[in-house]
Structure formats: C-alpha cells, structure tokens
C-alpha cells in the first residue's frame, strides 16, 4: 500500500524578481522514485529545497505527514528526510566513518556521542553504498565517485523516510552512476520515497517510477517516463532532437543528436 509522505501544494518560489517555481503540485509516495528533469535553471533545485523546507515559498505550502513543513519541529523534519546537496562540500578533512556518523545528528541530543545502535546504522550505510573499505580514509583523499557514495551513505545512516537528492550523479562515471541509482532503488524498495534531480534522461527513464518535467518554473507534466519523454517534448523543453529507443523491457534510451532549429537560432 503506498502512502503520501511529502506533498508540495501549489508551490511558488521567487528569488529577487525571478520566478523560479510557479504553482507546482507534486507528492512523494513510499516505494517510488520520482525523477525531476528539465533544463538548467528550470527550477529543479528550488523545488527540492522548497520540499526539504530549506526554501521559503512565496505561494502554496509543503506538507510533511499531514503538517505544514514550516510548523514542523526541525528535528522531526531532519529525521524524516535526507537531503543530498548539489556538489556537497565537506569543510574539514574528516575521516569517512565520522562523516557518515554525521547522518545520525537528527537522532542525537546536543551533547550525545553516537551510541552502539548509531554505529550499527553507520556500518550498514557504509556497506549498502559499498564504501565500507573507505571507512578509515580522509574525505579529502577520495575520488569524486567515492565521495558521492560516502555522502549518500551519510544520508542513509540517518534512516530517513525519504531522500531528496540534487543531481548526485552528474559528475560520476557510468559505473558509479549505476551504483548510486541502485542504492536509491534499494532504498525505495524498502519503503522509502526518493525524489532526484537528473540530467541523464536515459537513467531517469530507467530508474524512476515517475518523472516530473520542469520548464522555467512550470511543471509541464508528471507521469510515467514513457509518457513524459517524447520527441515533441524534448524539442519544446530542451530544444534538442533525439532518438528514442525502447528495449525488450519497454525501457527508454535517449540519445540527443542535434539542436532544434529554434535552439540553433538562439545559440551564438
């Protein structure tokens, strides 16, 4: 049985004079991976931040477990959701294990040290993301793919009900991209909800149960990948021509090969 965990109701966000989001409705359900796609500047990050309660909305509201998120206790909010920042920075050369431990913070009082149960969660998260062997390394010595998986482990260690990830795989090689997506799929399969901003449309189509397509702050469509990704939409939203190929499992592969004529006119 699926259950709605988080719901954006008619959310608008304005930054300065720019309208980043325009009355977007979107909900996260247990067991589902929702992909957030759209060109650069279409409002993916703003929507994720608004849904994580990190961004004030100028219209509408976000609801977490039947409560307006602005009225939620920040600790409860921290326990319920894990937010994976775009190019997440780590400011001190922390050892990997300590970094992943930080994920337990919403469960700890101000002066508490992580207890044995916390340690077990940290261990599990490290194993789940295949970073157990890195646990003694310093985060500054990791490669991009390793760091990304460690940051995901940090989120998983907090045992959130949902994960909000902002382009976590943009800088990764294909193998690491698949590894991260597999971890998220496992998380969803175990009853979690995931919303993830993506640029790689093939991966979005392969892993996401639903896709939400944004253009200049408007939610164009939210539906299954096969319904969202069509040649016509890719042309009108991204300004690209692409070949779409379906494999035997009805899974879509998107290969862009040219700009549309309108897009060519705009580019220098």
């Amino acid at each position, binding site marked *: 049985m699926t259950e709605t965990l988080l719901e954006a109701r008619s959310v608008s966000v304005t930054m300065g004079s720019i309208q980043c989001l325009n009355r977007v409705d979107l909900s996260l359900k247990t067991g589902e991976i929702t992909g957030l796609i759209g060109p650069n500047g279409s409002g993916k990050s703003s929507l994720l*931040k608004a849904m*994580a*309660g*990190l961004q004030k909305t100028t219209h509408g509201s976000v609801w977490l477990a039947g409560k307006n998120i602005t009225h939620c*206790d*920040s*600790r*409860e*909010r*921290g*326990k319920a*959701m*894990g*937010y994976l*920042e775009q190019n*997440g*920075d*780590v*400011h*001190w*050369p*922390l*050892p990997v294990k*300590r*970094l992943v431990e*930080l*994920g337990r*913070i*919403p469960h*700890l*009082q*101000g*002066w*508490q040290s992580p207890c044995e149960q916390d340690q077990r969660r940290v261990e599990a998260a490290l194993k789940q993301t295949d970073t157990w062997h890195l646990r003694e390394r310093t985060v500054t010595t990791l490669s991009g793919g390793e760091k990304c998986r460690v940051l995901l482990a*940090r989120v998983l260690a*907090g045992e959130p009900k949902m994960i*909000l990830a902002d382009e976590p795989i943009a800088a990764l090689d294909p193998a690491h991209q698949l590894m991260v997506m597999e971890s998220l799929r496992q998380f969803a399969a175990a009853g979690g909800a995931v919303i993830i901003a993506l640029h790689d449309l093939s991966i979005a189509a392969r892993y996401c149960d639903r896709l939400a397509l944004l253009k200049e702050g408007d939610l164009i469509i939210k539906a299954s990948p096969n319904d969202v990704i069509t040649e016509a939409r890719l042309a009108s939203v991204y300004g690209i021509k692409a070949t779409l190929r379906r494999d035997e499992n009805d899974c879509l592969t998107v290969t862009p090969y040219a700009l549309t004529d309108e897009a060519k006119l705009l580019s220098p």
Partner: protein
Amino acid sequence: MWLGLLMGSVIVLFFISLTVGRHSFSLWQTVQELLAQEQSVYTLILIELRLPRSLVAVIVGATLGLCGAAMQGLLRNPLASPGILGSSSGAALFSVIVLYFGFHAISPWLLPIAGMAGALLAIVLVYALTGNDSTITTIILAGVAINAIAAACISLAINLAPSPYAVREIALWTLGDLSKVSLTNLWLMLPTTLIGWLMLIGCGQALNALSLGEQTAASMGVNVARLRWRIFLATALAVGAAVATVGAIGFIGLVIPHLLRPLVGYEPRRLLFASALGGAVMLLLADISVRLIPSQIPLQVGVLTALVGAPFFLYLIVKLRKELP
C-alpha cells in the same frame, strides 16, 4: 586519550603555576597551614595572589581556545578567532572606556557587560562586512579593519583618560597581562564566562552538521541563523569577560584549535572541549614562562603568546594559499 593528556597537563601546569613567583616557598606546607586555618604571609600570597592568577589563566585560556574552535566551526574557516575577527579588541575598547572614565564606579558588573557588548559589536560588524560565504582574504581584511579602528580608539580613549598612569597601559590592553588579577576580578568575570561556555558546549552537534555546509546542516534540523547568533553571543559573553579582566591576549584562539584538530579527527564537536583544555595549557605555559624569564620589569603574557602565535598565523596563511586555487 588526548583529552586525558590535555586534562592532566592543565592540572599539572596549574600547580606549577602556583609555585612560580618572585619568592619560592613550600606549596605543601602552605596548604597544610591553610587546612589548619592558620594565616601567614605564604597563605596570603597563595590564596590572594597566585591562586587567582592561575585560575584566571585557566579560565581565560579555556575561553579563548573554546571560542576560537566555535568560530572556526561556525565560519568553516581555519583563520577565524576572537583576535583575528576583532572581538578581543572590541571588548578591550569598551572595557577601556568603562574603566578609565569611571563608569565602573556605577556598578562593577558594567565591566564584563561592556566587554561583551564590544566583542559582539565587533564580530557582528565583521560578519556584516564579509557576509556568509566569505573568502579567507575578506575575513582577514575585515578583521584588520576592525582591529585597527579599535586599536586607534583604545589609544584615543586612554590618552583622554583622567588618570596620569593610563597612557602607559595601552600595551596592557592590546597584549594582555595576568599579573594584577585578584579574586574580585575572578568573581566578576565568572558568571558571564560560564554562561558563554554553557551556550557553546551545546553547539557541538550543530557545528558537526555545519561541516557539510549550511544547506545540509539545515536539512538535518539545524537552525543555522539561530546557531550563528547563539555563537556570536556566547563568544561575546566569554571573550568580553576575559578581555575586560586581563586585556586582549592574542593568538590562543587561532593556534590551539588548529593544533588539536587532527587529534580529535577533525570533528568540530570534540574540538570544542579539547580546545578549551588546550587554551588553558597554552596560557598557563605562557604565564609560567613570563614569570621565569628574568627581567627588570614584569613581562606581559601577551608578548609570549604573540611571539608564538604570529609566526604560526603566517605559516597558516602560506599553507592555505597553497591549498586554495
């Protein structure tokens, strides 16, 4: 392990500090006299002169170390410290005004409060000048500016002060000196210092979260704006009281968190307590040294911390410049 070692050093150095002075006498015998409630010159020297000096050294050192660690954690900048960011000199300026113009006659508590106000004003000014995601250069520049303004105003205020002795004491405020503290000073500084410490100790978890950046910390339930004000206020309370009592002793808040960070696995929360201990060790060591170095006129303890700290500061700048593009 390291914490135990630091704590042991604080205790040992504290007792050594009690035995160091112009005159040497048996600490053990004097303590026995004290227990027998006999009064002698030695018990007076111990209780009224050396004990407050050593205790204040521990408290001020701990304050500076702790506040340095908290500021570095908050701004995620290894160069942040009460001295560099101007809170010390802001506190010194306000204390100078309250002291030398007789306002403390209204109430002695005005002194630590003035120190706090000065420290708070300075740090808020630096923060307003540099903003949130400031680079190291802008932070240092803002700190230099605030320090220069405060130093000029301290000079001006002391030159205008009614006391003919005031002029010679500018250096006391800009370098810091422990030689004239009494138990009265200790009682005056204690309440605000303790409030500041307590406010900071609870910040550990949030500072840990901040090492992943403000957005992520906020997503984990940290109210970053409230944390910032809490740390500004807490450091102002503790540093203000410390500076109002002994002047602006420099570089402890910069050096100590840096040296100890690798030992606590770079974790900001554990660095807080460790830096408090480390700061106490550094100031005790410096204060013992100034009393052991033979000199005609008593040396100021800030001279030593600056002699150690300033080259370290330069080394840090060079090191950070190499690490950054």
